[in-house]
């Protein structure tokens, strides 16, 4: 017992050290001025995309509920946080907390009626709700309607990005690897059997939806406070599709997959920035190729976990 506990502890300390090292390294590179503006922007996009993909994967991949309204929750988070920081002179912390709260409340309000629907119907309903959020924002003069809000203070720094990304991943991974996570995944596998095994499926669908929406709100707040400007058009259904593509590319039901795909898509978009015409074509081609040769996504529903690493390490396959 004692040695096992000890090895677990060493492992935990090891993991924390790796994270701290990663954080410090990037922080050093930024403060030393070794990372120019272009790479900093991409690093920010990458973290935000990881948060979005991991949280959407909780809804689409683990719970099995096809949601196409993720950008809507991101918009709510972005606007809520900006209203706090810019218009009400609150701190960034308050802005982020309000963003998360507003997005999860919206997730709850939208989730309760729509999660009774299944498959295509749910997809269309969530798509519509995402669009409604955008159109409503477009018509509120207090937030400048379609022109959006400009001059947002740049408060999103590397520590915020890093912390938010790690927290998102930790919460989703810990949730999924618990009894609550198993209940959530059982809904994806067979909703009727799940309900008959004593699981209140509506409750857990709404729970996953609310948690997913909350992190989308977090991503929205980080986004708004980095890119200076937010306007409703940014959060159209095209943005939702972008996130969905990452999740599908990575493999529905794999957090590792969502992270890898989010990084990959961000880098690809950045690399092809100078060739806007080819970019969309290449993007489409990659998607088609993946869907033909690996329809389950890059990772399927597998995770790259400590156990897998250990197995590879010890050469046992």
């Amino acid at each position: 017992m004692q040695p096992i506990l000890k090895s677990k502890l060493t492992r935990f300390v090891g993991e924390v050290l790796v994270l701290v090292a990663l954080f410090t390294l990037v922080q050093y590179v930024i403060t030393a001025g070794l990372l120019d503006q272009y790479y900093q922007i991409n690093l920010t996009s990458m973290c935000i995309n990881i948060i979005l993909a991991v949280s959407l994967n909780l809804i689409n991949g683990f719970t099995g509920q096809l949601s196409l309204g993720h950008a809507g929750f991101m918009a709510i988070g972005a606007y809520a946080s900006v209203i706090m920081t810019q218009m009400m002179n609150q701190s960034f912390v308050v802005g982020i907390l309000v963003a998360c709260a507003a997005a999860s409340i919206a997730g709850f309000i939208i989730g309760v009626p729509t999660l009774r629907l299944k498959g295509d119907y749910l997809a269309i309903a969530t798509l519509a709700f995402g669009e409604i959020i955008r159109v409503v924002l477009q018509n509120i003069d207090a937030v400048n309607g379609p022109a959006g809000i400009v001059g947002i203070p740049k408060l999103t720094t590397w520590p915020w990005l890093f912390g938010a990304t790690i927290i998102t991943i930790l919460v989703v991974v810990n949730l999924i690897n618990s009894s609550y996570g198993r209940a959530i995944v059982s809904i994806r596998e067979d909703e009727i059997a799940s309900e008959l095994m004593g699981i209140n499926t509506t409750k857990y669908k709404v729970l996953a939806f609310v948690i997913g929406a909350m992190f989308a709100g977090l991503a929205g707040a980080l986004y708004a406070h980095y890119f200076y400007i937010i306007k409703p058009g940014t959060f159209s259904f095209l943005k939702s599709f972008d996130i969905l593509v990452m999740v599908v590319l990575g493999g529905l039901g794999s957090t590792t997959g969502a992270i890898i795909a989010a990084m990959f898509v961000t880098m690809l978009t950045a690399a092809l920035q100078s060739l806007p015409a080819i970019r969309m074509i290449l993007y489409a081609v990659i998607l088609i190729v993946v869907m033909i040769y690996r329809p389950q996504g890059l990772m399927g529903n597998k995770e790259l976990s400590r156990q897998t690493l250990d197995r590879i390490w010890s050469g046992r396959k």
Partner: protein
Amino acid sequence: MSLMEIKNLNKSFGGLSAVIDFDFRLEQNELVGLIGPNGAGKTTVFNLITGVYKPDSGIIVFNNKNIAGLPPYVICSLGIARTFQNIRLFNNLTVLDNVKIAAHKDVSYGLFSSILRTPAFFKGEKQIEADALKYLEIFKLDTKRHEIAKNLPYGEQRRLEIARALATKPTMLILDEPAAGMNPQETKGLMNLIEWIRRDFNLSILLIEHDMSLVMGVCERIYVLDYGQIIAEGLPEEIRNNKDVIEAYLGEEVE
């Protein structure tokens, strides 16, 4: 006092009356069979009892409580578990996880405990795992705990489904054609297993089955359903010799 008593249960789909004035009772620790030709409404009765369908009228009293129309997860938590005619496992999950999911309704730690990985989480998980393994051992599936459920052979999938149902800790177990697709030898093994779990878990069992040797062999009482109505009820011997039943169903089985 009966464990379950059903009175005047009715259910129709559009113009079709699937279950008409269904009366039924199940005593503590009894093993009762429900038989009838295809389309007689047997599975509909199961779906009404477990809450998959809401009855049009009638009451289902279980442990002195009317459960008619309650949602399935509430009925499960009151102590009724079931298996399915066409196996419904959580296909892409491991054998162990399938059973663990059934233990979720009694989970001892909270949502925040699992996100923050508190000691309560580890303690609860350990307990769930130990419990799940206990059920897998009974059904000789513990060596296959890490296999993906859909990769198990048919007979083992059936056993896993029963193990999963038992893991919800029911007082009443409903088996929907447990011997479907089994050969005579496997059916015999299943008969012994059903007998054994009834005694060991102190269960009351309701069973739908087409395999007459199984029904006549293990059931203490039998209900016969035809066109949504009970046409006979009694001991296996009485059912075997009942004229209506022979006409409706057992025609070629009895000489």
